[in-house]
């Protein structure tokens, strides 16, 4: 086995391979597991690196370009490193009417990062999101797996001070 091949295997753990293979058994054809496989890698590593993407492509019998076309199509598959938690802040019209811009500025100054950036302690990455379907509680955002509604500057302080 060449050094390059070994690197690729490290880009995908046995555990990940096991989970992906399990997904494949539910589906018709290995390629059909592409999105699930990317989600599995992301679950384990927060994001999908080039090396992991190549390893998944090899595992599913796809080319890098074909799989990366899928990975980059979905804005919730991350192809660059992100923090422990990803903040998805709604930038749609309802949240905008309800003061979404102020909230955005508040988060940016609270965490000292711009949109698309990660805090230096690697805790948070701030990304825009179009509509969380929570317009009756605008402005809204998701942090990690949790939804936060009716956001105010005070709520932002509370959430991030915790």
């Amino acid at each position: 086995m060449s050094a390059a091949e070994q690197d690729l295997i490290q880009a995908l753990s046995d555990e990940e391979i096991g989970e992906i293979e399990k997904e494949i058994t539910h589906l018709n054809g290995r390629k059909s597991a592409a999105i699930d496989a990317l989600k599995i890698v992301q679950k384990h590593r927060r994001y999908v690196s080039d090396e992991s993407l190549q390893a998944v492509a090899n595992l599913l019998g796809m080319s890098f370009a074909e799989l990366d076309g899928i990975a980059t199509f979905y804005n919730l598959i991350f192809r660059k490193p992100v923090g422990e938690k990803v903040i998805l802040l709604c930038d749609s019209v309802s949240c905008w009417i309800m003061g979404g811009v102020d909230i955005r500025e508040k988060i940016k100054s609270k965490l000292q990062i711009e949109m698309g950036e990660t805090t230096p302690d690697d805790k948070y990455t701030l990304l825009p999101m179009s509509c969380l379907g929570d317009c009756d509680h605008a402005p809204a955002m998701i942090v990690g797996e949790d939804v936060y509604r009716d956001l105010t500057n005070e709520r932002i302080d509370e959430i991030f001070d915790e």
Partner: protein
Amino acid sequence: MPKIVVDGISYEVDAGNNLLEALLNLKRDLPYFCWHPSMGSIGACRQCAVIQYRDEDDDTGRIVMACMTPVSEGTIFSTDTDSAKEFRRDVIENMMINHPHDCPVCEEGGECHLQDMTVMTGHRNRTYSGPKNTFRNQYLGPFIDHEMNRCITCYRCVRYYSDYAGGVDLAAFASRNNTYFGRHQDGILESEFAGNLVEVCPTGVFTDKTLSEHYTRKWDLQSAPSICVGCGAGCNTSASERYGQLRRIHNRFNDQVNGYFLCDRGRFGAGFVNNEDRIPQAGIRDSEGKYDRVSAEEALSHVADQLANSSGKVVGIGSPRASLESNYLLKQIVGEGNFYSGVSSKEQELTNCIIDIMRDGSVKTPSLAEVEEADAVLVLGQDLTNTAPRLALAVRQSVRNRSKELAVQAQIPLWQDAAVRELAQDELSPLVLLTSYADRLEDVASLSCHASATDIARIGFAVANRLNDRFTAVDGLSETDQKTVEEVVEILKAADRPLIVSGTGSQSKSVIEAAANIAWALQADNEQTAIMLCVPECNSLGVGLLERENSNTLTDLLDSTDTISTAIVLENDLFRRASTQQITAFAAKLEQLVVIDSLDNATVSLSDVVLPAATFAETEGTLVNNEGRAQRSFAVFEGAGDIQGSWQWLTNLGKALSREGFAALERIDSVTAECERSNDLLSGITKVAPTADYRVEGMKIARMTHRASGRTAMRANINVHEPKQPVDQESALAYTMEGISGPRAPLSAYVWSPGWNSNQAVHKFQTETGGPLSHVNPGIRLIEPAGNGSPQERYREVPQPRAAGAGSLALIPRYHIFGSDEMSARSKAIAELAPSSYLAIAPETAQRLSVVSKDGVEFTIGNRTLQLEVVVDSSVDDGCALFPAGLADTLDLMHQAQVSLQKAAGWTPRTTTQDKLIAKE
């Protein structure tokens, strides 16, 4: 035929068409982007919107996409109501939001489908004033430039590259305004058919890099219809010139041969015409061994004197890369018995065998268009992608016939591309590859085996026997081979339209014979059987037919004990035909070696007299492709200096020698006619294309476009008086913009119609979209196998299995699309991708020799000791060694069957050739 109503006019249209096709077939205009006749509809671009009405009382209607709407009896449409026009205009305006206003510096400008469609929809004023997207462009190799900002996301590129051509390294990334078409990182596009992106892209995202280096607008190019000289497939090209240089090759539609697509060797391999090694003047070698430049007249009278006063025999050596006419004339000058075909006995034997099989006629030889119809393909010993690339692309389409069958069953129209693909998923028609090494078609093959030519032939003979027990049986097949035989038999028996493909690639007559036996055995039960046999060069089959009665080959000449004083070599580098030793010895015995060729080469270097020959771009001639189709190629421009077509040199030489019949030869047409008269097998070659006196409405056909600009200023830096344009006496084409062009002009190589400046205009030239051209014949098949006979077995000699492990390795040529072909390899862009020489061996062999990749091996051929770099390749059979065919330092290996290797002492590994493949930036 259903009747439909469009804008109040009733039309009868073809059932099964979609509305866009139907309208284009009616020669009506309707803008579109994503639809392509070879790739069907996906409704992605929303450009061909029309209004469909429920019935006559419906006066509102609804918007539908014409390309996604089947025509059926009584349907009512409108293309020119305001709502439809407004919709189409808005679609363009949306695309223009991010499209740069860079037409003046864009290579696509002037032949841009997006420009045409923008004008056609009437969108003129941009209302968007915000910033535009800016993408980073990629380095995609020496052939193609990338400018993503121009993209309108029609998805044609990926649909062509991945879905049609099977490429895996081009994809659509991201979404919405960020959609990016490219590779996952900078690098050379892997597909051998990537060049078609230049014509498939409706705007300037993918453009021809070789054209960019000496860019000329489409309307300023002088073009003529040409035939690609890159291999035996005979693809039709439109070759274009400006300022005495060949600027580019574009596809020229021929529904029977290449359709809409070329391979990259064909498209980018014509740069040799501009090579600095071109021979511009005649030369005579003086006593010091240097060439004296002489005029054409001096050179001719010198050669005529030499020939007339020759002490011994005068021989002529023909060439499969020269036209029928040139070969014929040389034969007339030296006399039948003194003409040698210019290829080795081995190659002549293979070509003759192919002609035998084709002329037997009981099984039909398909055109490339018919290859795409096959529902099971068996390839025996031929690396299609690297020897007849366009055929490989056709075979790749054949595997999709299974999905088409499924679609027909499900009543889905075949133009519904996404639906047809979705339905079939991974189901493919069978393709079996029995080749000597890994083949580029393997991704769509249902079965592939790598074996030596002998083993391939043995499997082939056994398949024929299992299909029909009247055919010779094979003893002693291994169990694995036996299994392969059974699988192949099952596949072929189940097929409705089976196709057997083979050719000279494996250098084995047995392989070709086995292929014929299989076809004949199948034909007894299935009259739809077809056989396609590949020949190596652009006129191999033509010269084979010309030389059918006369079996003199170059090998015969080299072995001859006659005293030969003078040899005339026609467009042939003899070092590519026989060993260095043999050719050098032959040349040394000659008093005079006269060489007629276009580029300097090893044979030219030995010559006493050299006559500068035109390339395909500067002269006319007839070539015969591997299905026996004769096609004519025309001069694009006049050769510089004393350059003339070989046929002109030879006509003049014949006249100078007062050879019988030459006095009457005036024009190429008379030579073609004499050539046809001389040989029944060539009957029909005069009808391939219009003769020089052909006129349309009293006019010649213009090589330049009616918009050609600046011709009068071309030489203004030298003299403001414009010289007279050359007068073309050899064809119905004129070297001017005066004359006729367009769909009614049979020789027009310029595809243009009012409102349609891009190559998309071709539908105005066709009887129907994707169908034959209305005023051009697609060439004439000289051998037209009836395909309805009751075939007899002709071949009974089953080769004996190769003796295992005798310490020596069987030498097998591996072909390279970029590098193995003599002429295209001398084009700059192709040379950049040509491999360096190597010897590929199996891991087991490497272990025995204790070498690894990048080590050197040493071996002796004749009296030469050669060293080559080792490539360890697990797809190579133990006991075989693969060498790259056609490279200068591996030419001698072609004439050697076996080789004994040892590790080379003192080998310094080459610096990697990969360096030059990395982006310049």
